């Protein structure tokens, strides 16, 4: 294997429907605290969604909030929180050496829908179209808003990766550090998708939009009665550094990036392909230089669609059955819904504290496990507690439309 720089996580900033920092997020996952809401969107009406409650004005002035986007605002919040968490001060000595790499499922739908609604009030006269529409909808918007807000002058861009984007942002950050393109990476994923009716309408047309009388029971991956996705907004951004740099400044290290893989199904716009998902996981395990049996926790991507959950389970069996040992398998979407571009990054954050507390959170909302989703290691109801030192590797799956697959592996930091 090529010798490569070791990359470590030294800061985490996040907002999710059930928490606005890692501590609150983890506490609420372990407590089974779910906070979905019914929201009202133009054309489609009432839908169940995961809404974040962070205060945008904590880090932005009202002009930034007005001129920018929700994805930009989420990014600024998460980046500021992550930088503070890492104990980094941004100044002239480092501002050009900080890179921002943010995964997004999509971008621009919200802003375009809003502008069309705006001009509909003026007989569709485009002279009422907002001049901020272009900076709001360029694909680098969320990352770019962070640079403007924080005075960062290093590279910034977004990685469009459907619902695999959160993992892709982290992978991109690690790669750029390895290439020496940057010294500090602010990397992860964000989503503002709950503010576009189109996302909900498309899932509904696909028979993949969750419904339940009790919104908090609507997101139920692996449950026999699951009926689709609860769309959420959110974000999780990590501070990544080369190990030597982190050690030089005595940074607290949450975990090390051990390995990853991304690949493509090459088969369908929408339908997943378990063969390629299995290949993605196996390649990540190989990239990390470990065996399948070394993985202790596997966070599934499962979104609560009928077919997708079964197919991911099939992929997991392909990878782990022959190793003779399954990891503990969990899922985060029962607690927070599908945070789209933020999903991979947020779900990883939900498991990172396991390195310290030894607790492995279960899935949520599985009242009756779908027999086709049953597999060894699946924590369908109850958490598991181990000696923390026994948790060494976490594998985080994130898959998306057009058959984009990503598996990211992090490891307990051991010097």
């Amino acid at each position, binding site marked *: 294997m090529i010798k490569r720089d070791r990359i470590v996580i030294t800061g985490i900033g996040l907002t999710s429907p059930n928490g606005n920092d890692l501590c609150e997020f983890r506490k609420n996952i372990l407590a089974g605290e779910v906070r979905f809401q019914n929201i009202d969107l133009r054309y489609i009406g009432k839908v169940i969604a995961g809404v974040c409650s962070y205060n945008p004005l904590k880090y932005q002035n*009202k002009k930034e909030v007005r001129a920018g986007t929700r994805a930009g605002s989420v990014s600024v919040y998460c980046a500021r929180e992550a930088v503070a968490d890492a104990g980094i001060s941004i100044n002239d000595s480092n501002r050009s050496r900080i890179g921002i790499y943010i995964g997004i499922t999509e971008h621009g739908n919200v802003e375009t829908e809003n502008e069309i609604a705006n001009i509909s009030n003026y007989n569709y006269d485009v*002279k009422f179209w907002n*001049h*901020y529409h272009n900076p709001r909808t360029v694909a680098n918007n969320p990352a770019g808003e962070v640079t403007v807000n924080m005075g960062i002058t290093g590279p910034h861009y977004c990685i469009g990766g459907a619902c695999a984007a959160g993992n892709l942002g982290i992978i991109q950050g690690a790669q750029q550090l390895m290439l020496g393109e940057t010294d500090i990476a602010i990397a992860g994923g964000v989503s503002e998708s709950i503010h576009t009716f189109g996302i909900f309408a498309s899932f509904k047309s696909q028979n993949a939009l969750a419904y339940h009388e009790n919104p908090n029971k609507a997101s139920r991956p692996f449950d026999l009665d699951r009926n689709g996705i609860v769309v959420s907004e959110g974000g999780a951004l990590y501070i990544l550094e080369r190990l030597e740099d982190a050690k030089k400044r005595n940074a607290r290290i949450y975990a090390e990036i051990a390995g990853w893989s991304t690949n493509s199904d090459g088969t369908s716009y929408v339908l997943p392909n378990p063969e390629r998902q299995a290949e993605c996981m196996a390649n990540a395990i190989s990239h990390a230089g470990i065996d399948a049996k070394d993985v202790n926790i596997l966070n599934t991507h499962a979104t609560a669609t009928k077919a997708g959950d079964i197919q991911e389970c099939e992929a997991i069996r392909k990878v782990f059955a022959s190793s003779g040992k399954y990891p503990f398998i969990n899922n985060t979407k029962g607690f927070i819904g599908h945070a789209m571009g933020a999903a991979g990054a947020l779900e990883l954050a939900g498991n990172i504290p396991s390195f310290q507390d030894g607790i492995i959170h279960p899935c949520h909302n599985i009242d009756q496990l779908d027999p086709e989703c049953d597999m060894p290691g699946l924590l369908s109801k109850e958490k598991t507690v181990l000696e923390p030192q026994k948790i060494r590797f976490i594998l985080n799956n994130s898959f998306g439309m057009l058959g984009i697959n990503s598996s990211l592996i992090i490891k307990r930091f051991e010097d």
Partner: protein
Amino acid sequence: MTRDQISQAIKDIINEILPEGDCSSVDPNAKLRDQLELDSMDFLDIVMEIRKRYGIEIPEGDYPRLATLSSCVEYLEPKMASK
């Protein structure tokens, strides 16, 4: 609208657009951009709000006439008198 009402209408718009604070104490005869944290993008927002709220078009060539609160009122008075 009277001159006072027009002046208040402009202040209301600027207050929504300002990054922070408010413009209630601006010197009406000094340049707005010298007193407030407003950039050229903000002026586009002010022009848009006047268009939306009062149906008044302000050609780009007339933007310099919006430099101070007094000049805004003077420029807009004939256009807003019947509003």
